């Protein structure tokens, strides 16, 4: 399917070119915290906003592009929703960068109400940001619906969710890839609906001056943001389930009752896990805090447990040839466990009061993103490049894998240590009381440079080959 090859190659080129820029913004922030650089607070928070939103955005679309490509193995995939998503993503990113670097928009990636009305230097930046969110949201929503319709054309909903497997039936089989993709796509819909409501309320205040309820806005923001970040990780897992057994020379994974149970639990529980972001909000009804606590355990643990045992079982006595793709997938799962545990620790109410405003939080989310979700997508990209060009990047294996994993591990370790020393997050400079934060920021920045080097090498390799796919498909 040439059109699908071409749009997938376009996604890969776009994402791998933006990735090093977003890393560079992160390094500049850490160097500023280390007092090596002197950025103004406005510049720092603009970088923080751009870094966070770009990273979440590009790896969400890449994980979805991977699933869109692999889905053609099972169902007929229409390309126009993906292309529509691509165009609106580009529009959204241009508006976003204009708001941040032209309008001084610097709310951080959470853009918590009422910051979008204040954290800016130009009044139009708020409108540009809201339009950017609207463009991204519409593009991704249509894309998600396109994939969901493609699945439901062939698999009735109950079969796509593998409910018959839950009661012990083994036929007709629902492939794990279809199960995970369906639960993830269904999980995304409420996130987008929450975003639509959120945007509507922002516009009501921006255009009509109608004040909003801060608690409602925070709930909606995390309903959207937290769920989106969770679901993009699950897209990565779907790609792993599809590709990893074949890379190990093993038969495809099958949907067992416990696998079906784990992913159906994920579908429902992930919607309420975001409550753990509101532990500090004393006005949130207490019952929701309990729900958040329970959901924070129930949502990730079955998925992590099932995936980890599956992956370890696959590797055991497989004679796996370790090239970049399986290495990315395997290490991604291992770091997902570490990051997931860090997140679960933080999501326990008693711990959250100590950890939540410290660097422990960027520690765990960088672990399961930079060293988890991103690696799943890089695994897919590497596999895609080999499929298209026949080049498995064996020359790059040692330098890229070593630099990326060593750099990534050192980078997040600096965050974890700083978090355990109560160094606060979201500040551009550290006070004397937590001066160790500055030293650890420098250590983190140096390790991040290793990641940047690996990504630069990898990007050149990938972009050249994907460009050929794009040109060949066009001609």
């Amino acid at each position, binding site marked *: 399917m040439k059109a699908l090859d071409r749009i997938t190659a376009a996604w890969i080129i776009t994402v791998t070119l933006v990735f090093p820029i977003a890393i560079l913004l992160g390094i500049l922030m850490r160097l500023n915290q280390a007092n090596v650089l002197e950025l103004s607070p406005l510049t720092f928070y603009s970088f923080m906003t751009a870094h966070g939103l770009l990273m979440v955005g590009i790896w969400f679309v890449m994980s979805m592009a991977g699933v869109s490509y692999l889905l053609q193995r099972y169902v007929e995939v229409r390309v126009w929703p993906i292309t529509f998503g691509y165009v609106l993503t580009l529009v959204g990113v241009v508006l976003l960068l204009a708001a941040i670097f032209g309008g001084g928009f610097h709310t951080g990636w959470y853009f918590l109400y009422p910051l979008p009305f204040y954290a800016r230097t130009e009044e139009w930046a708020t409108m540009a940001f809201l339009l950017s969110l609207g463009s991204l949201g519409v593009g991704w929503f249509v894309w998600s*619906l396109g994939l969901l319709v493609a699945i439901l054309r062939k698999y009735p909903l109950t079969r796509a969710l593998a409910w018959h497997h839950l009661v012990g039936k083994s036929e007709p089989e629902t492939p794990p890839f279809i199960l995970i993709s369906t639960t993830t796509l*269904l999980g995304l*819909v409420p996130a987008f609906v929450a975003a639509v409501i959120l945007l509507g309320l922002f516009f009501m205040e921006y255009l*009509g*001056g*109608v004040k909003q309820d801060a608690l409602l806005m925070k709930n909606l923001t995390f309903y959207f943001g937290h769920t989106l970040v969770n679901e993009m990780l699950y897209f990565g897992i779907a790609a792993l389930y599809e590709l990893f057994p074949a890379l190990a020379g093993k038969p495809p994974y099958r949907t067992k009752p416990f696998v079906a149970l784990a992913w159906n639990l994920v579908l429902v529980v992930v919607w309420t896990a975001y409550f753990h972001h509101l532990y500090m909000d004393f006005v949130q009804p207490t019952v929701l805090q309990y729900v958040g606590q329970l959901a924070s355990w129930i949502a990730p643990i079955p998925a992590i447990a099932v995936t980890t045992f599956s992956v370890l079982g696959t590797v055991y006595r497989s004679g796996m040839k370790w090239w970049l793709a399986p290495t990315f997938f395997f290490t991604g799962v291992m770091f997902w466990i570490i990051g997931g545990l860090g997140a679960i620790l933080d999501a326990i109410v008693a711990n959250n009061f100590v950890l939540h405003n410290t660097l422990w939080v960027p520690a765990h989310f960088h672990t399961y993103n930079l060293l988890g979700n991103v690696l799943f997508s890089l695994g897919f990209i590497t596999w895609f490049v080999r499929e298209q060009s026949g080049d498995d990047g064996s020359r790059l294996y040692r330098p890229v894998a070593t630099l990326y994993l060593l750099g990534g591990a050192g980078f997040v370790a600096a965050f974890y240590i700083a978090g355990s020393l109560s160094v606060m997050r979201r500040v551009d400079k550290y006070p004397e009381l937590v001066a160790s934060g500055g030293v650890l920021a420098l250590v983190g920045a140096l390790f991040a440079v290793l990641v940047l080097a690996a990504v630069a090498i990898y990007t050149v390799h990938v972009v050249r080959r994907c460009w050929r796919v794009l040109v060949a498909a066009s001609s």
Partner: protein
Amino acid sequence: MLARLGGCLIVAPLLWAQLNEGHYYLRSVPDVPVTLITGEQRSLRHLFQSQAVLLTLFSSRCQGLCSPYLLYLKRELASPREFAVVALSFDPRDRLADVAATAHRFGLAEASGWTWGLLHPTGAASLLSTLGYTVRYDSSRGDYDHSIVLFVLDRHGNILRRMEGFQDPALLKDLVREARGEFVLSYPLPSTDVALRCFELDKETGSWRLSTGMVLLLVPPIASFALAGLIQLTLSLCRTRSPQP
């Protein structure tokens, strides 16, 4: 709920310009020329470059609220420390002698921390516009209808607070703390212009109940299942109607 929402949409824009003090937060005031009662010519920026100021505007000829308001400020602010009070006449009919006479009448002409002056007509309009200070000449009374406002400006000339009219002295104390550089929590007061609240509070009994905002959180998951069901139903209907191969 819809009626309330519609009412808010219609009424809120009308109230917004006057009541939404947060709208002025961090606005930078223009650096306009000012003549002090000592005869010195200064720029407005010069008055707040060494410390935060509480700024108020008045007219020496005002037959309305200016005098009681200046008395209120004198009583509540006493001798300012770590900030200054700047009182400027916006009235183009005022002369320096009029402003000085007003300052003397309140016993504040030489008071420590108080600065009195006259806005230059060329800069007055832009300053009043930035501050959201409304002035309208009423020819039948031969006097101005105008706002009564106190502003907190930081050392860069940014508006930190804006307080309209006579308020509880406790609120005025918050402005003073803000001017001294303390962190003062700020939030909109409960009012009818909030669209969808998570809670409703009964002020009489102190009891609360969940409201439409919380109910709104149920919409996304319900919409998700409804949408999936709708797609499924539509596809089933399409399959039924299309001829079997």
